[in-house]
């Protein structure tokens, strides 16, 4: 099993590498087209700002490469947002794999009288799960989030969370999978999701 992590200017991927090692995979970090095309699984991670990372992907022609991959691809956090049509972060057109847009959480949202902070930082539950990343036992479990922008719900939404409004916690279309939360930091629940992605 060859697992490749897309190497680009998306911040720190040490925790993704560590989590994959914990589930028994030794991934390669690469931006080499041949290696990415040959990999059994590709992970598209990301911590960063949407418009600058999109510009980097285009400049290095990673945008067309990612769209054309045929084996399972997993976007994480900003990786997921970049797989959508458009992001309000830097008002940028993204890869357009998923038929949904990325918006900023409104300021001053209230939940039971207390103000919701933006970005959302911490553990929230996932619901209405579908598809091979999840099983029945994952319903309602907590996963770790850090994000100020969210993908709107659409027909490709395979998990939802609620933070003042309901948004896509996970998306899936054909061989493309994506999660807004950080499975690599979500304790055993996250490791199970990574394992299912590897084993699918």
């Amino acid at each position, binding site marked *: 099993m060859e697992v490749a992590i897309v190497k680009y200017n998306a911040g720190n991927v*040490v925790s993704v590498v560590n989590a994959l090692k914990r589930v028994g995979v030794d991934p390669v970090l690469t931006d080499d087209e041949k290696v990415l095309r040959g990999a059994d699984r590709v992970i598209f991670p990301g911590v960063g700002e949407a418009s600058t990372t999109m510009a980097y992907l285009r400049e290095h022609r990673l945008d067309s490469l990612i769209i054309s991959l045929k084996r399972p691809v997993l976007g994480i956090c900003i990786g997921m947002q970049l797989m959508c049509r458009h992001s309000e972060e830097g008002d940028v057109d993204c890869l357009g794999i998923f038929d949904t847009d990325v918006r900023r959480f409104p300021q001053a949202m209230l939940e039971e009288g207390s103000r919701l902070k933006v970005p959302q930082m*911490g553990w929230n539950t996932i619901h209405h799960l579908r598809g091979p990343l999840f099983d029945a036992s994952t319903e309602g479990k907590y996963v*770790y989030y850090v994000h100020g922008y969210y993908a709107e719900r659409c027909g490709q939404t395979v998990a939802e969370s609620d933070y003042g409004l309901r948004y896509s916690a996970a998306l899936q279309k054909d061989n493309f999978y994506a999660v807004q939360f950080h499975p690599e*930091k979500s304790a055993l629940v996250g490791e199970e999701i990574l394992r299912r992605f590897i084993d699918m």
Partner: protein
Amino acid sequence: MLAKRIIPCLDVKDGQTVKGVNFVQLRRAGDPVEMGEAYSCAGADELVYLDITASSDGRRTFTELVREIAAHISIPFTVGGGINDIHDIERLLNAGADKASVNSAAIRNPELINDIAHNFGSQMCVLAIDAHLEDDGRWRCYVNGGRKATDRELLEWALEGQERGAGEILFTSMDHDGVKQGYANEALAMLSDRLDIPVIASGGAGTMEHFRDAFIKGHADAALAASVFHFGEIAIPDLKHYLAGEGITVR
């Protein structure tokens, strides 16, 4: 719904934790990795490791330790202590830390917050503030482990930190720290209501009610504690169960 976070804080000196942990039998007493794993299994939502080593040898040891922690722990962890510049941050984040907390260095050089946010993202930057309530009712910020007073006022500094790109505020009340009489809830609520970023309460936890009050009265997003966890006075599963019964959302 987003859960309120419970965060044990571990002090590390020369690669070893300096306060004992009584809630679990450790194979190697004082092993920060094993302690972190035990807390993670017990339901801690995040961990903070503070390097209290003075020497540069000790700091190298700490970086190695961060690498070990990152390999084993599957929940987020923050590192702090002895961070002076962006190079220290880079070294710790590359070793696998999820967040770095800055305190004295940020007051000495506030641009450091902008640099961290710009280079690594706001979510990496925890601004730790130690403050003491003066006789005139003003919360004054202190540096160098609470030994040196500054001209900074708590709210003003926290707002500036947020403006510069800090992702969270870790507020320790020096008046409440170590006395186990509860957190500084009024000051916490004032901070939390004025800031858009999360506030972590620190200093004063003695009972489970103190955690409840930090969330309900202090509007804190997370509560940090050390000795009540290390000495087994409060077990995290019991605490979570109690808080849930009080209507607080916990994982």
